[in-house]
């Protein structure tokens, strides 16, 4: 049983250029999958194809079987939020769409609860806030609350932390990890940053130029990448480079004694 299954998905632009080529993907209920790839690798388009919100002029072929309810969180919360709508109204409106027949008051109560769940303090006050009054991290929390209002079984995240400062990014990643565990949601998390993807995913899928080059259990792929492109991505990670360098320099220092201290 899988919540989402994609078979042979290809996306072709009007001028005949293939943007996504024969992608297979399966997501079990409650599973977290990370998709990593460079700009132009087709990772965001694949997510959009799942939701059926492809940009105009792109033709999709292949099968997407999705029995689960899905919702998406986008990269740039400033443009994803409606600037003329109060944050709480936006979340309440999404909630009402997915709970037909319920009153506006119920929706606002639900929105308050959702705000609390995504870690917005003074939730009841913040319902009345306009998007421009909120910080980048707060806006992204509102977007996540709006996505949760649809009670998704699969949460799709398209670079949700790329526009945020590193400390805010860490908070949002913690929040997503926590929500996925608490609601036993499945999640697909797309990013160009392997370290970010790795921090929230059990399984990893590596894309390049529209194709899936490698997929597998995260820890196994990181320990022994099968494809040379994955190996290249790992080698480009500065944290890894620093580690191997510090080992080298420690070894060389041991052999040749100190090279002199750093001058200030």
């Amino acid at each position: 049983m899988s919540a989402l299954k994609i078979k042979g998905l290809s996306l072709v632009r009007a001028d005949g250029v293939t943007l996504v080529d024969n992608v297979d993907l399966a997501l079990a209920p409650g599973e977290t999958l990370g998709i990593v790839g460079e700009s132009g690798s087709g990772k965001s388009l694949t997510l959009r194809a799942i939701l059926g919100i492809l940009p105009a002029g792109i033709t999709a072929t292949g099968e997407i079987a999705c029995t689960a309810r899905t919702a998406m969180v986008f990269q740039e919360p400033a443009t994803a939020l409606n600037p003329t709508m109060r944050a709480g109204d936006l979340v309440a409106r999404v909630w009402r769409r997915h709970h037909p027949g319920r009153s506006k008051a119920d929706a606002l109560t639900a929105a308050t609860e959702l705000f609390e769940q995504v870690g917005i303090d003074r939730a009841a006050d913040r319902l009345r806030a306009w998007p421009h009054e909120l910080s980048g991290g707060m806006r992204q929390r509102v977007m996540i609350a709006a996505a949760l209002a649809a009670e998704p079984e699969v949460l799709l995240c398209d670079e949700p932390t790329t526009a945020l400062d590193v400390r805010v990014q860490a908070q949002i990643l913690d929040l997503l990890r926590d929500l996925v565990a608490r609601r036993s949601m499945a999640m697909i998390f797309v990013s160009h940053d392997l370290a970010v993807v790795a921090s929230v995913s059990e399984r990893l899928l590596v894309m390049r130029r529209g194709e899936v080059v490698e997929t597998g259990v995260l820890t196994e792929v990181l320990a022994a990448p099968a494809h040379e492109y994955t190996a290249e991505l790992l080698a480009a990670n500065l944290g890894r480079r620093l580690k191997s360098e510090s080992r080298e320099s420690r070894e060389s220092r041991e052999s040749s004694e100190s090279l002199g201290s750093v001058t200030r």
Partner: protein
Amino acid sequence: MSALLEIENVTVSFGRRKHAITAVDNVTLHVEKGSATGIVGESGSGKSTLMRTVLGLNRPQAGSVRFRGAELGARRDLATRRAMQMVFQDPGTTLNPARTVGSTLAEMLRVHRVVPAERVDARVGELLDLVHLPAEIREARPHRLSGGQKQRVAIARALALEPELLIADEATSALDVIVQAGVLDLLAELRASTGVTLICISHDLDLVRYLCDTAVVMRHGRIVEQGPVAELFAAPSDPYTAELIAAAPTLPGSTEESVR
């Protein structure tokens, strides 16, 4: 070692009176000749404003900037401007789209009379070689180039003037990770081969650890901590620095005490 750049008690603010925002607040920073300094901080911490002030693009409300021992005023001669060069974040918007790569580089050499007129052509070739770009690229216009190639052209353009100080402002943030690693290696190599003093502005702590020997942490326009990279990262003395280090995502297996 002597200080190439001395920033003393510099304050920069924007807006006036009630709406004034102090972007840089009484900052003092000395940069040694030949060193590589990394300035880290979140958006709005004042790191870019500080460097723009060094270049003379912003006027400080207070404090002074000395370069090679001489105080820099609002008006600067050609030689001073030539000695400090900056590479910006987005190479797509800093290169002239109408000019070929060759003519962009040649223009710099001619305006600043870096080499005699008959040597300009040959020097353009050398510069492309220096940043590991193929000679054919000389005839290409920016739209034909990849992001990494454009940033290499921007670096070549800065180096054309043989600057003593090269400031890279988030120079690799817009690049894909593999391309970024290539550009960082290029900067390290150029520092070793030309002896240029490097200041890197970045929000990426790993980048600073990788490329620099001194780290400066900025927050709300102030320097909260500075010191040798190895010491600062091993034992940050300021809680904010510690928070930044803890927040940076790491790959399992990339730190000594391997996560999870």
